[in-house]
């Protein structure tokens, strides 16, 4: 345990790896060209970030030189190494990467001008050329890209030259301006609810995007606020951490109550669009919480989770709608819900029973199949007498809750209903995780054979995970069908399963907060399979971004945005052990006396 860095000679991190810089430059160039040809610049040009300087379309290209230059310059500092002194060479390397990235676009411009490849490449168009040349002549456009690319690359490289504090400030400002701009709909709506339109009118341009002055204000605030309250927050944090357990629990409870109260009040200050958006997010939170139990806790990779959502939705439709073709008891929603929960639980058992005898890849593929089977059953002519086939079931009534009716035309009520069920789902997940069943799930995730040998009946325990997951999904399905008012097989494509899984993975497997954050970021900002998010312009690139995000997460942060401590350990076991060893947490043990 005494071997710390001081008895190793301090090594300096290696100098600039020019081969790496060139590789990044090339990849940057290809990425830029790919983004341009995917149609992002043209498709997103309508959305302003800062009017009139920057639109989302240009941002989709401009981040490339900056980020790639900064990535190319980053070096992993190993134990016992000192960081190399950065100098002008790093700036030059950054500029090179930036230049490489933008030359991809320049090349593309030349090609578009001289050849016509519109047939396979839809976005090979004069509009793209126009946009790339900034509505000026091609030559000027190329020159501008050269300058822009190099400058941005230079700045990216400069990120490593400036001290860390400055770097994080710059990133915070950029992120804040971007976030405020993206959250425009939400913030306008919220502030309008509080009667503070003055603020948003000042910051935002009428037709979307920040005003230049607004952006400056946001940037200034981002710089100021940490200076003013940063230390105070830290003080409060340390005080809470140092509190005795009993007191800390009380503070936590208080915070929780305040948050819950705020959430309940929030819908009343929000407009229709935002309520609708948040209701959609809530539906996905419900689904993701359910899948989190199956995938995150019990470690069963279920790719057909949408089946339970579908069963929940269809059962509700059949039981409540007067238009249900086969059997139409027209039950009130709360009564129907009980049937829905029981029935989906049974379906969970039936699908689960054959599936859970398999493991790993086989299990994933079989669940995928079952997900599709359920959808095709609802679509089939054979059962169209019950479920309406492709016509679906329409005219599903809202939820009568005494004081009013929850229905799709009143998103606020839907959001409130979703909130209630989210609360239930969170409670269920939390309690089960810390119970005998939760421990058994975790043991199965860690090592199924050993769990079985230690007396855990793995078949029943895994089935239980399936059933609990199914029931949570059925809540979501029941609300979905009352909210939309009609239900079709196309609402339950395989894509939904995948997107829920991405939400769980990106948010952080096995972590309730992570799952909620994941749903807010993915469904709220980018949008769900059919539901628009805050960035409505993104809808055609949604899957591209989902995929890119998933790949990036898997490579760089497999534990998700809000990691579960345990999952992080699992995924970074070696690093974790190394850290523990350095901190002296791993015992070498031979020095104790026998008891």
């Amino acid at each position: 345990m005494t071997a710390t860095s001081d008895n190793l000679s301090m090594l300096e991190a290696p100098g600039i790896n020019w081969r790496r810089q060139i590789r990044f430059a090339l990849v940057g160039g290809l990425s830029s060209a790919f983004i341009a040809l995917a149609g992002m610049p043209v498709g997103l040009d309508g959305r302003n970030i800062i009017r009139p300087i920057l639109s989302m379309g240009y941002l989709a290209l401009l981040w490339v030189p900056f980020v790639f230059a900064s990535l190319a310059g980053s070096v992993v500092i190993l134990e016992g190494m000192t960081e190399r002194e950065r100098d002008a060479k790093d700036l030059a390397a950054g500029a090179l990467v930036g230049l490489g990235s933008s030359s991809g676009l320049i090349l593309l411009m030349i090609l578009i001008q001289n050849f016509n490849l519109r047939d396979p490449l839809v976005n090979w168009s004069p509009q793209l050329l126009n946009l790339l040349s900034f509505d000026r002549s091609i030559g000027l456009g190329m020159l501008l890209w050269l300058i822009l690319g190099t400058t941005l690359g230079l700045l990216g490289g400069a990120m490593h030259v400036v001290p860390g504090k400055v770097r994080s400030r710059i990133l915070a400002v950029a992120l804040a301006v971007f976030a405020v701009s993206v959250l425009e709909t939400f913030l306008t709506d919220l502030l309008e609810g509080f009667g503070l339109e003055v603020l948003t009118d000042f910051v935002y341009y009428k037709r979307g995007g920040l005003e230049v002055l607004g952006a400056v204000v946001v940037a200034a605030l981002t710089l100021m606020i940490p200076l003013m309250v940063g230390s105070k927050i830290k003080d409060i944090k340390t005080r809470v951490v140092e509190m005795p357990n009993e007191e800390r629990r009380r503070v936590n409870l208080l915070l929780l109550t305040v948050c819950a109260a705020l959430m309940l009040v929030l819908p009343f200050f929000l407009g229709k669009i935002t309520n609708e958006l948040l209701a959609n997010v809530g539906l996905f939170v419900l689904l993701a919480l359910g899948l989190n139990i199956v995938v995150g806790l019990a470690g069963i990779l279920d790719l057909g989770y949408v089946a339970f959502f579908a069963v929940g939705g269809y059962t509700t439709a059949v039981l409540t709608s007067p238009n249900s073709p086969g059997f139409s008891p027209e039950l009130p929603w709360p009564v129907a819900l009980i049937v829905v929960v029981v029935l989906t639980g049974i379906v969970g058992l039936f699908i689960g029973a054959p599936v859970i005898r398999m493991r790993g890849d086989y299990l994933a593929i079989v669940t995928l199949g079952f997900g599709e089977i359920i959808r095709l059953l609802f679509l089939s002519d054979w059962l169209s007498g019950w479920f309406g086939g492709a016509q679906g079931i329409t005219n599903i009534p809202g939820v009568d809750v005494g004081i009013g009716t929850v229905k799709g035309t009143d998103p606020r009520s839907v959001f409130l209903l979703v909130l209630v069920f989210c609360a239930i789902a969170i409670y269920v997940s939390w309690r089960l995780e810390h119970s005998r069943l939760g421990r058994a799930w975790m043991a199965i995730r860690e090592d199924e054979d050993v769990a079985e040998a230690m007396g855990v009946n793995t078949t029943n325990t895994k089935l239980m995970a399936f059933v609990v997951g199914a029931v949570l999904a059925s809540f979501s399905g029941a609300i979905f069908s009352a909210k939309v008012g009609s239900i079709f097989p196309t609402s339950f494509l395989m894509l939904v399963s995948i997107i829920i899984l991405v939400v769980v993975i990106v948010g952080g497997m096995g972590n309730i907060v992570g799952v909620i954050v994941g749903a807010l970021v993915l469904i709220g900002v980018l949008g769900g399979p059919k539901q628009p998010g805050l960035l409505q312009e993104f809808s055609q690139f949604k899957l591209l971004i989902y995929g890119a995000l998933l790949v990036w997460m898997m490579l760089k942060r497999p534990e998700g945005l809000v990691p579960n401590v345990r999952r992080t350990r699992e995924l970074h076991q070696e690093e974790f052990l190394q850290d523990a060893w350095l901190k002296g947490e791993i015992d070498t043990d031979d020095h104790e006396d026998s008891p």
Partner: protein
Amino acid sequence: MSMLEIRDLSVTFGGLHALKNLNFHVDEGEIVSVIGPNGAGKTTFFNMISGMITPTTGDIVFEGESLLGLDPSQVTERGIARTFQNVRLFANMTILENVMVAQHCRTDQRVFGALFQTKSFKSEEEAIRNYGEEVLSFFGSRLVGYRLDQPASVLSYANRRRLEVARAMATRPRLLLLDEPVAGMNPRESAELTALIGRLRSEWGFTVVMIEHDMSVVRDVSDRVVVLDHGETIAQGSYDQVANDPKVIEAYLGRPVGSDVAAEEEAP
């Protein structure tokens, strides 16, 4: 009657006889060691008792009832717990959770209790926790205190072995199967664990069957030694009897080239 009785047990993997017509018994309160060269079928033997492999022929009777056809979890529920040769802890669960989860088959609270935090749920959780700590404190201060909430992966090798034993103990077995409990430990640690194995019987009332390569441990704790080679019992009896059995010596050291058994008997 014996606590565990194994009759004419055979298992074949394809054409390979992993175990051939094995007869074996353990009486209540005994400590029996199973030894044999690598590949003799010792671990297969354990896997069979704990239900992870189904024997091709033969019967395993524990306390008068056959264990054939039971899942490993059911075998554990009957009162047989095992450890693994290549330590297989739930590495990312805490040390306390490792012994808590092992009490799964001795407890029965389900979803309802957890959701409504019923009195019986709370008292059961409390009991699981307490019993877990009790089991862990059997190993002195090593696995308790601040360690309780640390992940099992940070433990040293010897402590992982100890936790393996603790986890098996937490299932409240009557028969404990230890697969090389002191492998990889230094002499002092293995001597200490040897003493603990004796205490497992005297204080906890466990019957122990142990696979072990460390002959000093085998000598110190076992009442009886069974030697396996190529899936067959080649000798059994007290340590001294077995240690001097020419067949055993042959199995371990091999027969000298060009000599027969008679010649070898003269050799020592």
